[in-house]
């Protein structure tokens, strides 16, 4: 239970003269719900993009279940068991809800010859897709085009598509942004449910209340550096964190 599933080891990232991340290290433990927070521009999404392979770290390494994954293709990282969602929701707009999930279920075939022979609409895959859609509360929208869904459902669909790839680690980039209170609560329920099934979760969030109520462990970034880490209640009292968030008052309020 306590082995780290993901190890961020001394990762730095420079974009030209901009130091987006500086010597960031932390572990995500197997089975935990881990939050990555920090003010705008702290480097959170950059770190996500390094973990899932969109970016290569300038220095440092990323290990997933003991294997080094930095520098691997994003599709290969996905195949290893890391699913993700995006800050600006990226469902496949011209596919239906069902097709979006079926596309995720194809992960085991995309890289080989089976992509030329396996059919998405097999009974087995359909059953699996329905199961996932059910668990995400999307079974009423099967034939709707993804682009026609409201944002809250699009975010759920994005999670459902990621779940279809059977991830062991799920990266959620601001999953609650743009959601109303009801949708946010549903999202939290969903995260708990997935976590119970054994999926480790690492999420980025701006909503402090959501973070404090959802995460078991919080890592705080500011200007590309890790400034704090710990349980939500510890982190929210940390003077460095309060200072980083000074002016927003969000941390204080959410206590």
């Amino acid at each position: 239970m306590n082995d780290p599933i993901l190890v961020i080891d001394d990762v730095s990232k420079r974009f030209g003269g901009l130091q987006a991340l500086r010597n960031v290290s932390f572990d995500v433990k197997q089975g935990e719900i881990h939050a990555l927070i920090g003010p705008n521009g702290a480097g959170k999404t950059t770190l996500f993009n390094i973990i899932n392979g969109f970016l290569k770290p300038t220095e440092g390494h990323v290990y997933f279940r003991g294997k080094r994954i930095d520098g691997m293709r994003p599709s290969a990282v996905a195949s290893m068991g890391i699913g993700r969602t995006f800050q600006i929701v990226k469902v496949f707009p011209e596919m239906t809800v069902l097709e979006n999930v079926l596309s995720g279920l194809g992960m085991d075939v995309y890289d080989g010859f089976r992509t030329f022979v396996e059919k998405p609409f097999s009974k087995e895959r359909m059953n699996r897709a329905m199961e996932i859609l059910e668990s995400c509360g999307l079974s009423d929208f099967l034939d709707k085009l993804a682009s026609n869904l409201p944002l809250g459902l699009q975010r759920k669909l994005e999670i459902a598509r990621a779940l279809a790839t059977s991830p062991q680690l799920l990266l959620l980039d601001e999953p609650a942004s743009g959601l109303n209170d009801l949708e946010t609560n549903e999202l939290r329920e969903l995260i708990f449910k997935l976590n119970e099934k054994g999926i480790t979760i690492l999420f980025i969030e701006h909503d402090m209340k959501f973070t404090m109520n959802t995460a078991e462990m919080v890592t705080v970034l500011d200007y590309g550096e890790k400034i704090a880490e710990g349980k939500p209640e510890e982190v929210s009292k940390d003077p460095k964190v309060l200072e980083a968030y000074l002016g927003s008052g969000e941390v204080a309020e959410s206590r």
Partner: protein
Amino acid sequence: MTLDYLMTLSIFAGINIMLALSLNILIGFAGQVSLGHAAFFGIGAYTSAVLTVNLGLNYWFALPLSVLISGFIGFLLGLPSLRVKHDFLVLATIGINFVVVSIFNYVQFFGGPYGIVGIPRPSLFGKTFDTFGYFIYTMVWLILSVVFVIYLSKVYLRYGFEAVKEDEEAAESIGVSVPRYKMYAFTISGAMAGLAGNLWAHYMGVIFPENFAFPVSITILTMVVLGGVGTITGPIIGAVIITLLPEILRFVQNYRMLIYGTIIVLVMLFMPEGLMGYIRKVIKR
């Protein structure tokens, strides 16, 4: 109207359908807009012509070779798509079309502006195909091509293409290697256009660089856009209309490019999903 004329027209329609379907794999399935598709058509035609005329190879050896070589060159010409996207890819493919035609034009081996003449008709069981035989032969390949494309649209390959078309980052996040799928699209599309080129060269018996110039790419694009990008019936219908139009309306012959251009503009303005998309919408209402 003689029967020969009708069969010739059907052969052209069949070849155009194959071209439209192959371009549709690139544009409609994988979202890789190419304005140089005539280059692939030409590569298929020239490969087979060179193999049979210059090298004296039997047609039935030249056929698979020309398709394979077209597919391989499709793969090579698809490489720019890994570096450039959208409008830049469009420009790159136009450039490729001009480069390929120039090679046909300036390299003596390819016959230069006089093209390659005396391309043999295939024969089977000692009998050389007449117009009727070639008509049947073309229809066989047409049916196989349509079945092939329908098959592709039913397997995971299509989802990979669609993912790449709709969002490359999201595609990677579900395990679709974007470069791999772009290369699949260019290779398959190139091979299929190459087959069309092979059929065309061996029917006409003579080919010139001009047969594969940029305006031909626009013509193929018009078929796809008019019929409906991304569908299968669309490019088929579009190809048939564009093949028949100059025959029914003789004056179209002289103003082809003007009319194709106008069709593209009008379709984009009033029914961006093409005829098939439009019909579908009307039925749903």
